């Protein structure tokens, strides 16, 4: 039984890790779901004893460990809510980049890094630019990327 459980946990974790390395945001989210469920199974497998359901009135036989079940339940609730959060985040990334492909998204990051470096150069023009648009420099540059993205969409 333990062998079967550990094999299942291993396969689930492996599949989740594989999906996490994909280029697609949704696949990454599904990979996360698989990994956190592998962890839930692992907690169940960590129970100290097996037996009847631990419901009152108890029988004379040994009961299964109720603590791991309570822990798994808590972990399921947490992983469920986090999945919802990550899904909504993936959706927000999609609406602002018009893509769920990590490669395209990291391209936007590179464009960003280049503009950052230009702003960071210590020549007087750039410095003037910094002090004028100082308050939230990253946001201004995001507007540039945002503009490019809109053009792509059109």
């Amino acid at each position, binding site marked *: 039984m333990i062998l079967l459980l550990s094999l299942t946990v291993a396969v689930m974790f492996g599949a989740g890790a594989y999906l996490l390395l994909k280029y697609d945001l949704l696949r990454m989210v599904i990979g996360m779901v698989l990994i956190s469920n592998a962890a839930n199974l692992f907690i169940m497998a960590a129970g100290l004893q097996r037996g009847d359901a631990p419901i009152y009135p108890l029988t004379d036989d040994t009961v299964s460990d109720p603590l791991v079940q309570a822990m798994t339940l808590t972990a399921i609730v947490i992983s469920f809510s*986090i999945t919802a959060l990550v899904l909504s985040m993936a959706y927000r990334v999609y609406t602002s980049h018009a893509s769920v492909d990590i490669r395209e998204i990291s391209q936007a990051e590179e464009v960003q890094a280049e503009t950052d470096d230009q702003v960071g150069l210590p020549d007087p023009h750039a410095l003037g630019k910094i002090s004028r648009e100082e308050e939230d420099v990253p946001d201004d540059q995001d507007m540039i990327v945002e503009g490019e993205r809109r053009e792509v969409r059109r």
Partner: protein
Amino acid sequence: MIALPLGILWFGAVLLGVLDGTRRKNAMLSITILLLAFGATIALGFDIRQHGPREFVLGGWEQGVGIALRVDTLGIIFAVLSQAVLLAALIFETARGISARVFPAMVLFMGVGLTGVFFTGDAFNFYVFFEIAMIAAYVLSSYGETPRQLRSAFIFTVVNLLGSVLFLISIAALYHTTGRLDMVGIKAQVPLVDENPLILIATLMFVAFGVKLGLFPFHFWLPAVYTGIRASVAAIFSGALTNIGTYGLLRFGGDLLPRELEQGGAVLIVLGSISIVYGGVQSISRRTPNEVLAYSSIGQVGYIMIALAIGGELGITAAIIYAVINSLNKTLLFLSVSMQGWLVGAAFAVGAFSVAGVPPFAGFLGKLVMFQAGMAADRPWAVILLVFLGGALSFLYMFQLYRRRFWIPEEQREASAMLPQAVVVVMGLGLLLVGVYPQPLIDLAGEASHTITRQAAP
């Protein structure tokens, strides 16, 4: 008494969850709540200094059956520190104008999670509070909602989720090996059970907390995230959230699994050294302020690792003091680097001197305790050399950054609003105060470390 700070924060967080945080009135309310909880935590701290660690079992269960809250000096130090950082960031952001309605509520939820993590006496409850803090952090990381912040938020969430899952697995494994979930019970059982599974569990925990801290091989997410997020959120992450990693390593490594910490000492020293050098060199080569500070964080974590690896009462005291000072430094720097004006420049300089470890600023104390702990290590010259090298590197990158950000011709300078500046200046004065009068911090850290190590002895 123990539950009071937690209760205030939790109630306040839920209340603010339904209110619109962009309104000034509600933001002021959240500051008041955080102040109340801060006061209650400090009162609890005084109580514990007089009467020793306190325990409180939830739900009226017997001791040993119910889930316990347990507070000792170590927990109080980190709770006060994190709440102070949250308070500074919240006041700062309120003064600048909050742009998302959930911001104050999320800061309070983060406060609930962090305070809970530091106050709990139960390993699984540690995970639950840890997740509360992390979920608040996931939401905060997208604060601002520009494409760049969304990208940062996604990276941050995925990487840290993986870390949390590893931690959950290690908790389950710890339960299976020791048969206990309460920390006191685990500690009593650990010397009696087989060593091999414990080494595996300790490794998993180390990886999980290493991911949170951004220690060298697990640091890849950190610069990408810190460059994108807003100043106040960066301050919260580096000042408050990383405390989970430090506290977790101190609690699970120093307190519950001291034997495993000792066995892993060599690994910690190697990774810590690489972190210091790598973080320092990368910081020098970076241009954007947040990136410099992010790599600097990676470097500073290295010192904490080395202090932990040296271990013993001296090493753990050094780790605590260094973690506290590093949190304050980073909060001050992240907040001040986003503004302009000579006052902010002065505050930044205080933070920069402090990171470099120049007296009379607080950072000097951090370096000093590192030297002290280093003298107790096997190869004192190596540790001392490393601390010197790291200090020199940090001096270089901090003042490179200072020159780029604050040495700007007079006419191109526009000072930021007064109130956010005031927050930063108060923090700078605080760092100076800790540096000039460090005795309370040294006493507290010594006591916390004494409690941990004394219990560890059979």
